[in-house]
């Protein structure tokens, strides 16, 4: 029997793999959770997408407000990752198609640091604070 040789070419190692858009979204969620000491939880939810293979939504969850949920941004992307379609779910819904990771991060930054999102975070923290006073 002849020696079996790989016909696969070079298979990437785990260190070569690109960051998935979903992972970047999760990281941003974790930032919010940490920055608010867990008063607001940034979490991602996988959702259905017929047009693309993968879709996820970043939302703010508020444990002390009966787990109130505020959806912030939705992404969808194909198996080869880019382009990523980013939908702003906070105000006037806009879709941006990002051709690479830099464009994707820039678009996320625009949404997450927008006045609307800031206003929502401020209002939610105020509600959490008021709730804490009532419970004391």
């Amino acid at each position, binding site marked *: 029997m002849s020696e079996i040789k790989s016909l696969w070419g070079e298979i990437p190692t785990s260190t070569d793999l690109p960051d998935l858009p979903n992972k970047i979204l999760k990281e941003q969620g974790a930032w919010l959770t940490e920055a608010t000491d867990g008063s607001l939880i940034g979490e991602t*939810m996988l959702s259905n997408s017929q047009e693309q293979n993968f879709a996820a939504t970043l939302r703010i969850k508020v444990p002390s407000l009966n787990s109130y949920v505020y959806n912030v941004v939705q992404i969808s992307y194909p198996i080869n990752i880019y382009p990523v379609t980013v939908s702003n779910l906070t105000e006037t819904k806009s879709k941006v198609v990002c051709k690479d990771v830099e464009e994707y991060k820039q678009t996320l930054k625009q949404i997450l640091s927008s006045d609307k999102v800031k206003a929502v975070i401020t209002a939610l923290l105020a509600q959490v604070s008021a709730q804490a006073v009532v419970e004391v």
Partner: protein
Amino acid sequence: MPIALFWNLNRKALGREVAQLCKIHNVDILVIAEAGLPDVALQHLLSQETKTTYIAPFNEFSSRVKFFFRYPPESIRLVADSYGLSIREVRPPIGESLLLVGVHLSSKLYADRNEQSAQARLAICTIAEAEQSVGHKRTLIIGDFNMNPFEGGLVDADTFYGVMDQSIAKENMRTVRQVERRFFYNPMWGKLGDSSEGPPGTYYYKSSKNREFFWNTFDQVLIRPELIPFYQEGLLKVLTEIYDTQLMTDGKISNDFSDHLPIMIKLATE
């Protein structure tokens, strides 16, 4: 018996007309899209006209619909907000609680069929999670879907799954491609066309397209099977008049008001 009214005001200052409708129909839950006036202005008009207080809690979180309630503040609970979708739990002082979903999905001017269906899929995920959170499925969806009852975003199993037949809806769910999908009952199916009671639709639009329905029923009410026992035919209406004022002229929606007609439902949950 909670009475809910929805009206897309087309950004017109129709506060007086809204307040009059609330007085005439004894409305408990008012849901507005494209309000042409600030919440406080509408609350003032509501108070003047009805001599009762309507609260407007948490509207800073809802981008596309505004809620006004004739209930005490402790009766309203924040549940979820997303683009075009806001969910509140309503616990009236008397009777069963409701999961109230106000919707105003994207217009066909800005979203094609696929985009509208994608919005519907996200909406139904958020609603299902909300039902789990509150622990019941007495869910009422009311608003402007910008889709007709027969379009994919309303009828597909992975979207609202709004069926026209109560007996089918009462089967609760169906497994489609190994996923359990829960029905909504959409009584607005019974409001299509000029053989139905009331106007042929809730929104009139005429273009030069090859396919044009002219009358559309974008404004709808959907209820989960759990609410069907509290619903009776005749308790859902498309409104066409305010006292002696007609919202329609010559068989079309009058330009003097909104380009949508208001809809109203009564539920006997008390």
